[in-house]
């Protein structure tokens, strides 16, 4: 088994303050998250003050023109035209963006997507070898570690992304669906991580499942979502919930590309 350089398997010394009880690791994550959020807002963004600006005409992306040769009444042709009208290629894969998009906070969307890619890739490797593999081999344990830290990073950057979008009121200008799909991703991802913890087949899974059952049962959810049934939780974790997350992520990205990045709120001096 691959050993770790820094041993986190030893018992933690918890910090107590009134009724608050936090592990140093969790506290570190929260503090680093706040620091990263502050830095993302405060650090100067390269090129933000650059004189190199493209003319405003680039803003009006050409609408997708009907493709030549489309047969009248063709469903395929109509679908293509609709897709091109909604999301012309220059919006889907832009080579320019509004000049106000000049802050590190904008990076956290793509970082979330990248972390998700690593989560999925490491999860695919673990799924290929089955649920017992990572307990039995060093390489399996390494991929489990990659999966765990990718998940931690995924939630970390996703929450910073969410904070940023909240403080930009990013739902303005017909972007409510973009915000809502992002929130749904966050919630479904929590469910996906939860079923992952239940699928580990170790003490964590035993304890989390026997505790979580009470919450599930209290709302009647336990009747059809049995957290002590490993087979059911594993199915949810490796296919059903990841498929849902990925589908909503695709919808979220398409909405972002279609509506663009929300323009700034009126600043000082603007008409109110």
């Amino acid at each position: 088994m691959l050993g770790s350089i820094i041993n986190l398997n030893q018992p933690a010394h918890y910090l107590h303050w009134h009724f608050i009880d936090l592990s140093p690791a969790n506290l570190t994550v929260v503090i680093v998250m706040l620091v990263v959020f502050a830095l993302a807002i405060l650090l100067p963004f390269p090129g933000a003050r650059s004189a190199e600006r493209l003319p405003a005409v680039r803003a009006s992306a050409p609408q997708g023109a009907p493709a030549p040769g489309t047969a009248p009444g063709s469903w395929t042709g109509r679908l293509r035209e609709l897709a091109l009208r909604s999301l012309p290629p220059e919006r889907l894969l832009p080579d320019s963006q509004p000049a106000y998009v000049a802050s590190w906070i904008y990076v956290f969307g793509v970082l979330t997507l990248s972390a998700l890619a690593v989560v999925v890739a490491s999860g695919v490797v673990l799924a290929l070898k089955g649920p017992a593999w990572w307990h039995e081999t060093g390489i399996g344990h390494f991929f489990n570690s990659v999966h765990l830290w990718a998940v931690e990073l995924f939630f970390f950057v996703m929450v910073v992304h969410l904070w940023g979008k909240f403080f930009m009121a990013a739902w303005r200008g017909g972007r409510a669906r973009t915000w809502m799909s992002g929130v749904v991703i966050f919630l479904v991802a929590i469910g996906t991580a939860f079923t992952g913890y239940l699928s580990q087949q170790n003490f964590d899974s035993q304890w989390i499942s026997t505790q979580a059952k009470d919450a599930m049962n209290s709302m009647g959810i336990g009747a059809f979502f049995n957290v002590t049934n490993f087979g059911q939780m594993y199915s949810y974790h490796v296919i059903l919930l990841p498929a849902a997350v990925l589908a909503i992520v695709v919808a979220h990205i398409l909405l972002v590309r279609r509506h663009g990045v929300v323009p700034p709120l009126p600043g000082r001096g603007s008409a109110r």
Partner: protein
Amino acid sequence: MRMLRARELDRAARSWQGPYRPYDIVKEGVIALGAVTVIVVIAAILFSSPDVRPSTIAQWASQMPLNFVQTATEELDYTSHLAKYGPPYDHGKSSVQHIAFIHLQEWLGISHPIDTAEAYVIEPLRRIPADPALTAALSQYLRAPGATRKRWALAYAAALGQAREAPAAEGAHALIVPQGPYGPIATMMASLLADAKSGGLDGALLTSGDFYQTDYTKPLLFLADGGLLEARAGHEHLLGTQWGMMNETGSYPGQVWLWLYTFWYQIEPFKSSSNADAYAMGIMLLLSLALLLIPFIPGLRDIPRALPLYRLIWRAHYRSQEQQPAGLQPRS
């Protein structure tokens, strides 16, 4: 007036008529993916990941034989936590929760029925082969009227109160129970304890009649009724009263994103409520709904405008606006 202002802001944010800057979305994506991969791999090498071995019923019976037999006796007598739990496992009431007039737990009914005496004591004992004393004891117990069984169980539970554990080999403990009028239960429990120590009960509780097995409901709920899981969880700081939902074994960060969910369990009136789980779930459902619908909730959607953080995010834009002649400012 406020609604009008929100609509104006919404309309103004539909499209951008100002300047653009060069942007390479593919390059950004590749750099981000590379950076994230490097960070994750370094974290995996530096910190590894936790994997604390699961508990088995054999460990429980060996390390805590008194607790094991007490739990098994309660399962036999239908006085255990699980036997009195309620849906989805049985007709009990002790863990049935509701929010006001909403009784979802009861409405959804018993979907995973568990007869605790049959599942955890009688059926496993039936599977133990070639033990005439056990066969006779089991037969005596099953033929006895309910009142007699109850009397035996009460007497045995009282005797267990006087029982003691004696150290045995390799960290295991032997159980010494005083004599008493508890009929065949002592023989039954001695056999069950021996079976459990040997690992036989772990296998028996997993057997569902089919070759393959993926449902651990029965053994997990039995383990949860005993004290071993809770003792280990307390040691690992995973109990509900320790904000355990967001903690992880060892010193690893856990599910930090569950901080608000576990927060409700730490404060009154939820902390001491018999409906704490339902209330926490209900509150989190409402808060999640509010987060989802922020764009449509006056007051909540106005918070970003009231706080100056957006001025920091778009400070370069506002600076450039101030530097431009008034007539040339972009319309957003």
